[in-house]
């Protein structure tokens, strides 16, 4: 698990993935299925666009006063008997969780699916301290048992088909061995495996979907009930939340409970959502810790264009509509945040000097499908373009920058452009076969791998226009 850090530049990682036909078939099937379903779920709400605008404004308003909101949240949670901790980075957050576990003598804990915990590489950090974290979400369990990494925000094992999961469970789950590949039977095996853990484990770790400052209420949205088990049955609960997850008022939740399920699982509402405020005497964990994580978020917040990225509610709608994600899958992005949102979030969290992460803003044809699907109107294409500029600032003078400078010069006036065209026409001579170019040299060779290029024709439009004007005059 490498958390946020992509081990390779995107184009290189993508090449490996695009060439796997089974993976592409799996991805195509699931992304198209959920795309259709989301359109139906969203189409049912006549005021969807107004909800998006409200969701956007609600998040922006909270972010504008983020320190006040976090202080308010801290005070509310404490007033309800919870404890609040602050973590500047991943290492601090891991340390906080490990110390809480150690203070209770815990060497095994159960987890609700949390991308934030994957971001901080919590499981590996706990393992170093001799603490085993058990993933209880079905997909996360599949990923954990196969020593794999998640490839989708909502469905982390989207890249695995039922046959692979059948083989995995028959091999890894105690007492199993004769499971068929029926999803219901595989889910049943996971239930048997986890039941005892839920009933007996002393400590749980979760992420947070939303936290309400005025009431100190923390919210986890889920489907399977593993979340409720983890949030209710252990004695000690630790929830790790990115600082951007806070909302101001209880009523602010309504819009997100409308936007999130329809965008995410494409349901009217997800099966289970849990809300709790600190500790409830006689009900649920009697010790509650909330960890507020920065880990690069304040850098994102400081950027006027990039800031909107922090509106994200992790629904994954952008992944499901993205033509690039559909061809590469999540692993090509090399980070716990894949797809279009990952392409803008990962490099901003890591900083644009990260040589692999700064290739991610290039992982888009700028088709705009992600912006249309985003329930909080993050203008992902705009941020991608902006970040490409930031990445170039980091890279300094490159061959590409020089070439773009030369093109810019040629474009600086009509007559210079015409001169450049004449040069291109003369220069392309040896490459043209029957009006097409089938192999380009150097940086442009990527084009002719799978397409021909039409040759520059003998007369440009401007030459034709001048000729016509001359004839008229």
């Amino acid at each position, binding site marked *: 698990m490498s958390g946020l850090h992509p081990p390779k530049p995107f184009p290189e990682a993508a090449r490996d993935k695009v060439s796997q036909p089974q993976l592409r078939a*799996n991805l195509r099937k*699931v992304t198209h299925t959920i795309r259709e379903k989301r359109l139906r779920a969203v189409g049912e709400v*006549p*005021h969807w666009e107004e909800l998006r*605008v*409200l969701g956007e*404004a*609600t998040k*922006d*308003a*909270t972010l*504008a*006063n983020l*320190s006040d909101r*976090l202080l308010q949240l801290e005070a509310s949670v404490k007033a309800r008997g919870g404890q609040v901790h*602050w973590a*500047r980075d991943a290492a601090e957050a891991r340390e906080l969780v490990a*110390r809480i576990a150690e203070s209770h003598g815990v060497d095994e804990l159960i987890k609700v699916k949390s991308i934030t915990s994957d971001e901080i590489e919590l499981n590996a950090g706990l393992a170093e301290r001799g603490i085993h974290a058990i993933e*209880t979400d079905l997909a996360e369990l*599949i990923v954990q048992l196969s020593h794999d990494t998640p490839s989708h925000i909502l*469905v982390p*094992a*989207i890249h695995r088909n039922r046959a692979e*999961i059948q083989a995995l469970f028959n091999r890894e789950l105690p007492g199993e061995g004769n499971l068929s590949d029926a*999803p219901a039977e595989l*889910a049943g095996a*996971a*239930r048997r495996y986890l*039941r005892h853990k839920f*009933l007996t484990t002393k400590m749980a770790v979760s992420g947070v979907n939303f936290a*309400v400052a005025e009431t100190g*209420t923390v919210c986890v949205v889920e*489907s*399977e*009930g*593993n979340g*409720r*088990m983890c949030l*209710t*049955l252990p004695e000690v609960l630790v929830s790790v939340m990115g*600082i951007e997850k806070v909302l101001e008022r*209880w*009523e602010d939740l*309504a819009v997100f*409970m409308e936007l999130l399920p329809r965008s995410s*699982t494409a349901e009217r*509402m997800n*099966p*289970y*959502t*849990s*809300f709790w*405020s600190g500790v*409830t005497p006689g*009900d649920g964990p009697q010790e509650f810790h909330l960890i507020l994580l*920065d880990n690069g978020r*304040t*850098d994102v*917040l*400081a950027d006027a264009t990039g800031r909107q990225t922090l509106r994200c509610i992790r629904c994954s709608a952008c992944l499901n509509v993205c033509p690039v994600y559909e061809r590469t899958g999540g692993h090509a992005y090399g980070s716990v945040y894949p797809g279009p949102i990952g392409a803008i979030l990962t490099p901003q969290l890591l900083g644009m000097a990260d040589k692999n992460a700064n290739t991610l803003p290039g992982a888009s044809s700028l088709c705009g499908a992600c912006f249309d699907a985003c329930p909080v109107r993050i203008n992902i294409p705009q941020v991608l373009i902006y970040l490409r500029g930031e990445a170039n600032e980091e890279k300094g003078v490159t061959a590409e920058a020089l070439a773009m400078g030369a093109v810019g010069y040629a474009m600086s006036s009509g007559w210079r452009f015409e001169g450049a065209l004449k040069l291109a026409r003369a220069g392309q001579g040896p490459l043209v076969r029957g009006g097409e170019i089938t192999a380009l040299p150097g940086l442009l060779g990527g084009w002719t791998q799978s397409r021909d290029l039409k040759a520059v024709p003998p007369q440009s439009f401007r030459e034709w226009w001048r000729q016509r004007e001359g004839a008229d005059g």
Partner: protein
Amino acid sequence: MGNAEARLEVLTRINRAVAGVQAPALPAYPQCERLEREAMLRQFQDRIEDYRASFQRVAQTEVAGAVALALAGAERVVVPAGLNPAFLPTGLHELHDDPPLSHAGLDRAEAVVTGCAVAISETGTIILDHGVDQGRRALTLIPDLHICVIRAEQIVQSVLDGVQRMEGSVGAGRPLTWISGGSATSDIELVRVEGVHGPRRLCVVVLD
């Protein structure tokens, strides 16, 4: 562990990051078209059945019979302290949470019968605020069958209506559980499987 230092530094970073940023004004919450009472109840039924949960609508005197039908022979039934005893058929092995039932004890129960705080028709959502007729959270979590008796007047139309109704409960520090159908997963090839960990079966009884 120097958490005060981390706290100060994160807050300082935030204040530096958003210095001078103005919060936008919030637009009004978009209003849905209001349904008549009967249409709303039909919508609720449609949503509940769409989640493949069972639905019955009965008169006050028929509740115990509807619950008996939903129990389908289950006998070891968890009963929260504040549940109207008239809702229960006779002859059950009732499990009461006083003294609190252990996790293992709850795991031996076959079913739980509760009321609810409010329900939302548009999304088919039942909200528990774990009041006396619902019990603490574990009671509606561990038994495999959850039968929820909802008074018709507890059903509101929109998510916003439901959230607003819960303002008092949340303000009083009560936990909430929102339930929309039974436990489900779509993690394997996006095939929906009903029933993973949470109660695998949900039966809704609406009382007119």
